[in-house]
């Protein structure tokens, strides 16, 4: 006899406790009744425990552009390292670009698998582990480049350590 309309919600709402909200009034009858007057976010939140929030557009575009530029800059750096060998300026730039590229690269799986509104503590932990790790990696690359032989030479020595013609 009573249709599923806003008027029937108001009738039923009087039977609910005084603090019942509009959402509560709408759901007093059945979870699947049409909740007119609610935003799409409220309607979806009736069914899901959490909703992903979109990042603000501008910061996401800046983030992605920076990621692209660092990745493009890494191609000649890696090319020189692999095909030419140790070179001081190349190693210095590699020591800057590689941790930044790794930082951007790990941000994506974190955003995909460990979103902040679904796993807040894990998200916090991984994000800060990443930031501290990337900062330490920047420092470590600087140390290798200045106090040691350089990144490319370090890896080359590890790689060729079993060659008979290896000269230290």
């Amino acid at each position, binding site marked *: 006899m009573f249709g599923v309309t806003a008027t029937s919600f108001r009738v039923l709402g009087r039977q609910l406790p005084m603090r019942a909200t509009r959402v509560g009034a709408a759901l007093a009858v059945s979870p699947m009744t049409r909740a007119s007057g609610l935003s799409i976010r409220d309607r979806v939140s009736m069914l899901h425990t959490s909703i992903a929030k979109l990042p603000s557009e501008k910061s996401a575009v800046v983030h992605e552009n920076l990621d692209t530029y660092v990745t493009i800059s890494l191609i000649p750096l890696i090319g020189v390292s692999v095909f030419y060998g140790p070179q001081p300026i190349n190693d210095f730039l590699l020591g800057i670009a590689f941790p930044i590229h790794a930082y951007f690269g790990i941000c994506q799986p974190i955003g995909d698998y460990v979103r902040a509104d679904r796993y807040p503590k894990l998200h916090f932990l991984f994000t800060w582990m990443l930031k501290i790790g990337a900062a330490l990696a920047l420092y470590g690359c600087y140390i290798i480049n200045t106090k040691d*032989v350089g990144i490319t030479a370090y890896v080359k020595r590890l*790689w060729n350590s*079993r060659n008979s013609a290896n000269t230290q």
Partner: protein
Amino acid sequence: MLLDTTRCFGQTIGLNSFRSVTTQAEKAKHAKLNRPVSPHFGAFKPPTSMIYSGGNRISALILSFTGLAGTALLGLGSTIGYYVDAPTAASVAAALPALIFYPAKLFFSSVFSYHTVEGVRRLLWRTGFLLSPQQMRTSGYVVLGLVATLASYLTFF
């Protein structure tokens, strides 16, 4: 029908009580009990680009963890005094048994070259090239060939 009672966990209660007795999380858990799992891996052939993409991400994670952890530990160690310099590291690597050293070298060479070549292909995608299905298929084979070449070059030379 709208004002019917319902059964909640074996007990007949009013619908208003259902709302106040159970939390959203309990409702979600209850709803999942009889829900069928939709078939994916058994029913659908995985698209090639998904495998390349998964490989790219896995290789990215392997390289990042190795590289970042390695350099971060070296940086931390240098502040404490436990820095491992190049000759020491090289002698440790040379002392590893051959059964561990060469497979590890092959593994890291292939992971590195896969990520590099696939990364170049993704950059090309971002600038608009190689986007048609035929080009994707061809570039996939080119990627595999280049990865094999680069990995063998890095491992054996």
